[in-house]
């Protein structure tokens, strides 16, 4: 098992929430450490370009 997975299962879970804000609220209410990303569609909303940029590490 890799270190990243071992670390996840050992807990505590520390979450970066990208999307539905309800999840962030529910995790915060359980005292889980969570940071909400103020997300909006990248690459001007072009999914293909967003995919390419993520591959390039942008």
């Amino acid at each position, binding site marked *: 098992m890799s270190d*990243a*997975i071992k670390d996840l299962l050992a*807990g*505590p879970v520390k979450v*970066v929430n990208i999307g539905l804000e309800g999840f962030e609220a529910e995790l915060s209410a359980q005292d889980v450490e969570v940071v909400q990303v103020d997300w909006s569609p990248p690459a001007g909303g072009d999914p293909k370009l967003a995919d390419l940029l993520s591959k390039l590490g942008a």
Partner: protein
Amino acid sequence: MAHVLNEVRRGFYLDSVALMRMSRAIAGMDGVEEAALMMGTPANHEIMADARLLADAGKTAGGGDLLIGIRATSQPVAEAALAEATALLDAPATRGDGAAYRPKSLRAAVGMLPGANLALISVPGDFAVAEARKAIRRGLNAMIFSDNVDIEAEAALKAEARELGRLVMGPDCGTAIIAGTPLAFANVVPRGSIGMIGASGTGLQEVTCLVAQHGGGISHAIGVGGRDLKAEVGGISTLMAIEALAADPGTDSIVLIAKPPAGDVAKAVLEALEIGGKPAVICFMGAAEMELPENVRQCFSLKNTAFAALGEKPTTPAPPSMQASDSEEILGLFAGGTLCAEAQVILRDAGQTVRSNAPVTGISTQDGDGHLMLDLGDDDYTRGRPHPMIDPTVRNDAFIDALARTDLAAILCDVVIGYGAHGDPAGHLVALVSAHGTDTSPVLITSVCGTDGDPQGRAGQIAKLEEAGIHVAPSNADAAKWALAAIGAG
């Protein structure tokens, strides 16, 4: 003639739950036939076109733009609805004024949260893989709640994650419990030594909750997404999860819940369980009996899977006395896909003819004779609409029609609680039954998937249902058996 009005807001993003809530408010206005507020992604353009909500003006919206579509009985009504939609979008609460600072990127978020180990991703499916790729390359594991993700992209992402040693749960992963933390649609269950892996959300929920109700506990419940065990993906996340739980000192036994995997994938999964060496229980919903390694046991229902994991013999409660009916037909109205599948298996194995929009092996599709088991959370019912577990009003029409039918013996349904779910699904169902208000209706049989630790509280939900004359079985499998009893086949 209907009037369709579109407006495009360039570079304006809101999450899909917020947009669906607004869409429903606008669609409920007098004279409005249909309304939707959606991001202008290719998938959403299709949904809007199918719903006859797309005019030329809307076709210019891109994936980063908000698209408003309104179909109304007259131009003035459409304009009034558009004004209302605009007002909702511009309300200070919607724009998040006054909220704490939020980073704009994953990179900045990781900087703010040292030791972050999981990205929970629920952006539109067209963008989900790109976000997950960024997360795994920054050292995080990823849980992808989003659906509408291309299966080839899923397979490529998971192959990269395997190389990097990161776990990808999903896409379309609704449920997980990691190190005691419920994520997305999950329940509050005690920690214990049973580790679970599930390709289905409500399957994991039902088994974790039954284990909890009978004194057991969960080390982790790892969701892998509904397509992980298909040949195209090859079970990458399931195999990684088996390896992780086999090595996890807090896990003594492993439970795996999924639809029947592709042949080679099933073989690889069983081999991995054998190599892992811990006692394991598999439930491939609808599958026939399989040849198994010595440490693996196969169960055919979620209920029996939970009891096998606990090392106990399942108990079967006697059905309550129910109003006699001349009819012999059962209608299933489910929010949970795997709960619908389990009901099909139990009715099928009792020799009944069953049909479903989401059929398991040996069940016919919707047309024809037999008890109809409907998965109302299936894509056909939820494209562009909230899931019935979040918003039970989406199954109102189905219930209202069913309650009025005199040719039905029983309505079989589920009530799913926990994080992510509606605040009071039992209360909602009771209100529908009360509004119907006659005693000539079919009997209503249900179960509550959840625990007393959940925000809604299982005991309180059960009390509400029973007070309204609804029969509440201890599990979904028992509810299906009670429905058989209602038609004299139990």
